């Protein structure tokens, strides 16, 4: 049974929770939320299995994730991406998000690679549904109420201190927005 909104994350979203901040339990709250269906492509599925902490979410991924595996999705747009982007599966996220956008199905693509995100936003009908991990945490708190403010701010502080690549000013601005939002 599909939940309301499909989330289509890239591998950095999973690695952030599993390895960078070591909070797989928070990732599980998102995966288990009745608000979202988790969509992953074959490449992302393989990529996240490389994490030594993957075992913490493997059962839920097996049970909950809808794996897009009919086709070699990324091949359709491989020519437009660099090798490093292809290795991370960014081209696969592009195609799966494009399919959701064309079919007018509610989705949120979570992409942290700035170039890939910009490219998707430039070429898709619904660029408003493309966010990064930090933006998604804001949505999880202020719009979908998966996390209460305190939990979300705690996650963001952990991200700020971790090796997850993001401008600390973006985190500070997001914390301010979460504090100001009318969601608790």
């Amino acid at each position, binding site marked *: 049974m599909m939940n309301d909104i499909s989330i289509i994350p890239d591998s950095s979203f999973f690695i952030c929770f599993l390895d960078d901040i070591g909070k797989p339990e928070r990732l599980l709250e998102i995966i288990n939320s009745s608000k979202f269906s988790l969509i992953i492509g074959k490449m992302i599925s393989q990529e996240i299995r490389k994490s030594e902490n993957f075992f913490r979410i493997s059962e839920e991924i097996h049970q909950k994730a809808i794996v897009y595996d009919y086709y070699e999705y990324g091949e*359709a747009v491989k020519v437009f991406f660099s090798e490093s982007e292809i290795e991370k599966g960014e081209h696969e996220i592009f195609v799966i998000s494009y399919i959701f956008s064309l079919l007018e199905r509610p989705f949120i693509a979570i992409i942290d690679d700035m170039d890939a995100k910009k490219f998707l936003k430039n070429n898709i009908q619904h660029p408003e549904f493309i966010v990064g991990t930090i933006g998604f945490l804001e949505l999880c708190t202020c719009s979908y109420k998966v996390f209460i403010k305190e939990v979300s701010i705690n996650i963001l502080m952990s991200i700020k201190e971790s090796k997850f690549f993001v401008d600390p000013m973006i985190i500070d601005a997001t914390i301010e927005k979460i504090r100001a939002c009318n969601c608790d």
Partner: protein
Amino acid sequence: MVDSTTMQNIEKYLIILLGIDDHSIPSLTHLQKEMFVLSKTIPKIGESIKFQKHYLGPYSDDLNDIVKEPVFFPNAFKFDVNRGYRITDEGKEILKKMIDFNKDNPKFIQLLSIAKMTRKLYDRLSRDELLLLIYLTYNEFTEFSSVSDNLLSSMKKRELARRLLDKGVITESRFKEITGE
């Protein structure tokens, strides 16, 4: 030449590719390369259409013959010197029937979406931009090419990569990879 089942399948794939967008496909080169990337993406298309090395990159004789002289759907698409390859009203009707028949088949729905995306992205490219990206990605198809040396020269590559970036059809990272910046 392919068997009749494969020929019919290729004609159906052409109806999908040509009919999924209101505009014509700009050239035979575009049509060949768009079907080539679809053959890489969708295994069933790859099983039906085999591409060889050719003086303009990946090329299928079968596809070329069938688009010019279709047998099973003879009036489904046509070539117009000014407008390129396009679907006819009869072709649109055939596509509509295919969609109705497969409306609950998620694989088919996804195939349609991928075909539409392919049209949206690749139709915007000039012939040189298209061939550059194909040669860079599928380097083996530069063999027998009459244009790859020119397109892959550093000056030409840089010029085309800049145009592609300005059009927003390659990522910044791909631009840097092509130009070596």
